[in-house]
């Protein structure tokens, strides 16, 4: 029986909270296992640095991901080169693996238009801030790909809160009807800002919502990167080569927790207990994978120290590079509205430039 066909109430797990093996370990090379660990460490360290940049006024609002590395890294490792990723706004970790560099992510949250320019070689869609809106996009792209005879998978990320939006419903329903090769990956981190999962919906699991669309749903321990990898891998494979009478799309509910604030503008102590946070911190995906890899002899102190150093270096470099980027020119506001700039937009740009010439840049910038 495929993992996906589990009763949605069963939560798939490979490693328990101590990193002990409790399920079938997926087939991953040592390189991949270490790669996953390294990427999770990188995501965590980046996250901590990003939060502190924001605190120091060096960056705008930022949505932290700590606690969610297992789901992000575990799932993107299950993708192949030419598969596609449709993120929400919190998947910097996953996007990094898929080719969106840390500098780019920093620039985005620093408010630079350049931060929105996904590198040409990365099959990643832009960040989606309006909740759940990326879900129909992923369905549409997946459908288009299938119409073109390709065998690619399209993974789409969103939160538990997003499942309440109409676009979740319409996106998954279209995927079922048009048999789109999509993997809908719900990062159920228990909270939508201050609104707890139980207030979001009366259904017992989010995975069971798949039934409404005639597609499979599965719940996985989202803080167990190997379980996430396993489940996603199967969903990706099914998207490309479904069995007889099987529809391609899957809804994965990855049960997890965000350790920090919703964004740096949020104070979670207002709505949740420290106790709860501590209980979930015991499930931290990083020590869990590390314990397993140490147990398998794949990691030791020396390698871990090396990784720590690499990770710190990479983040420090990215910050340096991002901070070296100067404020974009105002013409960037006008540059990409249409392929060809219409006359009225050009006039607005020119009029503004003339004013700026006349009064100086400072006249237009608030301190």
């Amino acid at each position: 029986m495929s993992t996906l066909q589990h009763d949605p109430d069963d939560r798939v797990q490979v490693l328990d909270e101590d990193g002990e093996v409790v399920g079938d370990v997926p087939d991953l090379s040592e390189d991949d296992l270490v790669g996953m660990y390294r990427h999770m460490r990188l995501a965590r360290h980046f996250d901590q640095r990003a939060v502190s940049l924001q605190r120091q006024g060096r960056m705008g609002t930022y949505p932290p991901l700590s606690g969610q590395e297992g789901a992000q890294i575990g799932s993107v490792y299950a993708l192949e080169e030419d598969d596609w990723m449709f993120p929400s706004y919190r998947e910097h970790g996953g996007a990094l693996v898929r080719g969106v560099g840390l500098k780019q992510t920093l620039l985005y949250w620093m408010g630079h238009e350049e931060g929105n320019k996904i590198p040409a070689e990365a099959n990643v869609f832009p960040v989606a801030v309006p909740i759940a809106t990326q879900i129909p996009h992923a369905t549409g792209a997946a459908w288009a790909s299938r119409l073109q005879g390709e065998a690619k998978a399209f993974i789409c990320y969103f939160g538990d809160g997003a499942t309440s939006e109409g676009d979740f419903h319409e996106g998954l329903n279209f995927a079922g009807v048009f048999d789109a090769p999509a993997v809908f990956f719900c990062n159920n981190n228990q909270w939508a800002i201050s609104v707890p999962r139980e207030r979001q919906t009366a259904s017992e699991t989010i995975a069971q919502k798949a039934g409404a669309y005639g597609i499979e749903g599965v719940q996985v321990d989202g803080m167990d990167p190997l379980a996430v990898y396993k489940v996603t891998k199967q969903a990706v494979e099914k998207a490309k080569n479904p069995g007889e009478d099987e529809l391609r799309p899957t809804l994965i509910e990855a049960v997890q927790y965000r350790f920090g604030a919703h964004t740096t503008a949020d104070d979670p102590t207002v709505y949740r207990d420290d106790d709860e946070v501590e209980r979930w911190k015991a499930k931290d995906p990083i020590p869990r994978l590390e314990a397993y890899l140490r147990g398998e002899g794949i990691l030791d102190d020396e390698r871990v120290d090396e990784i720590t150093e690499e990770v710190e270096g990479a983040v420090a470099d990215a910050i340096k590079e991002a901070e070296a980027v100067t404020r974009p020119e105002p013409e960037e506001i006008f540059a990409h509205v249409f392929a060809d700039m219409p006359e009225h937009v050009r006039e607005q740009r020119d009029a503004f430039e003339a004013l700026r010439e006349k009064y100086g840049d400072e006249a237009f910038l608030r301190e």
Partner: protein
Amino acid sequence: MATQQETETQNLTLVQAVRDGLYTEMQRDDDVLVMGEDVGKNGGVFRATEGLYDEFGGDRVVDTPLAESGIVGTAIGMAAYGLKPVPEIQFQGFIYPAFDQIVSHAARLRTRSRGRYTCPMVIRAPYGGGIRAPEHHSESKEAFFAHEAGLKVVIPSTPYDTKGLLISAIRDPDPVMFFEPKLIYRAFRGEVPEDDYTVPIGEAAVRREGTDISVFTYGAMTRPTMDAAEHLAEDGVDVEVVDLRTVSPLDRDTIVESFKKTGRAAVVHEAPKSGGLAGEITAIIQEEALLYQEAPVERITGFDTPFPLYALEDYYLPSAARVEAGIRDAMEF
């Protein structure tokens, strides 16, 4: 015997010209596909996609579930992935569930990705009143879309323009809202070339030259406007009628040039007055040609009320009589 001329054009209604535009472009470009509610086997509730399903099959003429945000949202994904979807929204009054996808995503995908992703998509919808339709079926809310940067908004008024503008819209690298005046879907026929041809987006057409007053209009309102103009001609009032054809971006050059010639203007649309295109056009005129202005620009429009049930719709819609009265006011100022 058929002459050369006759074999190359067809005498089509406006809705047939829509169909012909879709057909022509789907023939030419395999990436074009049509999707929406009842567009497939049924050929569209107005028959705008008639026969396309048989011609191009269910993968390119797609009956979708009943979900406008899903239609536009998946079309955005398709467009970003290289196809050229032409989603139909069955009536403009049912486009609002898709409003978020249109304004937050379709209109901004190019900007938001600095050109990496684009959204070459045409959203078609019949709009306007006058066909004794049920509630919510007579909306004329082009102004909502004209206020969103990143969208072009096209409204044809003749069969020839319909096909040519639709083909331009499909070839446009950016999203285009294509609103079809359903009141005149079948009101008259016009010669339409069988081949493909384009009418440029963003260019107005002077439908009647005149020297006394410029009347700017579009879509179904061109007819009462032309009628009023002919009637006024009998009284010696020489009206210039400009069919805007694209309401965003507006063809400011043509508007201003016409106004400079006449010094008086009216705008006719069936959309509600407050916040409608007439205000925008008035603002442009006085920005560019205040010194030529001899009278206030008359706004001859729908009322600032919901569109009534059909027993009252004739009162709601600007009629030739209302247009004429408005023009006379401007002339007599």
